């Protein structure tokens, strides 16, 4: 059973739909107290960084989340803004992030005449940077759906799980211990996302 954290921002139904499609079970949790018996978590999110942190703060999620993820080491998957909130902070906002990754979130820096637009919106192929339980290295192109203007920069290269190229190579997914996070939306990435989530369920 995957618990999907509902702190007010995010496309919870899309995640529920795909987990159901691949034969998994999920539950949307609305109160931090419900984390006490969590076995696996997804932290979704779309929108602005400070907005997300403010919602987590105001609704009392932070202590319970830290306990669940950092002390009990429950596997967690952050998606999109969820991933960014798991970093130390973001150029998009002023509030500190959860700090679960030694990484900072920066805005895409592209020259004014770049043919690449911001937000980076669309499908992109990823490169697998290390062996991991979430996604295998394959000959076949593995592509995912991205929508973002900011991306994580890992201070520890060991944490870098996937990269993609949009003007330059950037971090598309991070992994540290029990924490996994993707900048892209696996729930909106057809069979590629289904495979990734199946692997997350199997962890």
């Amino acid at each position: 059973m995957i618990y999907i954290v509902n702190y007010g921002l995010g496309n919870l139904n899309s995640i529920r739909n795909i987990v159901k499609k691949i034969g998994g079970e999920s539950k949307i949790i609305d109160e931090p107290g419900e984390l006490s018996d969590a076995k696996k978590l997804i932290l979704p999110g779309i929108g602005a960084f400070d907005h997300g942190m403010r919602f987590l703060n105001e609704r009392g999620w932070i202590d319970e989340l830290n306990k669940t993820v950092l002390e009990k080491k429950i596997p967690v998957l952050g998606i999109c803004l969820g991933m960014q909130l798991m970093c130390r902070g973001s150029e998009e906002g002023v509030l500190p992030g959860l700090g679960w990754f030694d990484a900072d979130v920066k805005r895409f820096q592209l020259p004014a005449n770049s043919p690449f637009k911001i937000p980076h919106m669309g499908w992109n192929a990823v490169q697998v940077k290390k062996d991991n339980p979430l996604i295998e290295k394959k000959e076949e192109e593995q592509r995912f759906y991205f929508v973002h203007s900011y991306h994580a920069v890992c201070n520890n290269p060991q944490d870098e799980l996937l990269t993609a190229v949009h003007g330059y190579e950037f971090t598309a997914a991070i992994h540290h211990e029990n924490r996994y996070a993707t900048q892209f939306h696996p729930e909106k990435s057809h069979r590629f996302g289904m495979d990734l989530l199946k692997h997350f369920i199997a962890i």
Partner: protein
Amino acid sequence: MLKHRVIPCLLLRNGGLVKTTRFADPKYVGDPINAIRIFNDKEVDELMVLDITASKEKKEPNYTLIEQFASECFMPLSYGGGIKTMEQAQRLFNSGIEKICLQTAVLNDLSLVNNLSAKWGSSSILVSIDVKRNWLGQPKLYAAATGKSPGIKWTDFMLEAVKAGAGEIILNAVDRDGTMKGMDVELIKEAAKILSVPLVAVGGAGSLADIKAAVDAGASAVSAGAFFVFQGPHRAVLITYPKYNELVQLLG
């Protein structure tokens, strides 16, 4: 790797799918859920659903139906039609919509774009701009709900929309809609030249070459309706979508 999205655009009218020609003569093309299932199986890049009567008839979005769409879509889904408030947007996002598309409510006042993008991030907020050429061939902004020209320069409105927080612009050439006779490449060029955000070009695609021409003109993505739902000179309804490798070869 495919760098440009190709997006089927489905028009909703009283719960059924239709396809218009030059924004008129809606022809019934079938049940939306069935169509969405087929497009999902074909692994389309993205899907756009526009309710063409919601604003005109001052109706709410059909949330029940939209939620059903979202549950069949394992790719991004955008919805437009009848959105006027933050609460409606919230409900749509909760139903599983990734992006919402605005036009009627923001033609005179872009503050809704400001408010929505501040909360949901600009990449979730699209502004749709319909442009119709007058008898001199000059492109004019067109209000789909009233059929009138609001009297603002279309390029000015487009840039204002981006400034207000639109993360993507849907540019629809009204005169090409449903014709499958080629896209308005000049219009696309003019928009792409001044836009910093992704541009989705719509209207007139009838072949892969048309899609390529729009991308070459600067579109980040191309959307089409008739091309994906009609087959042959008699416009028989048949849902198709090019194979991924075909698109990579074409646009890669």
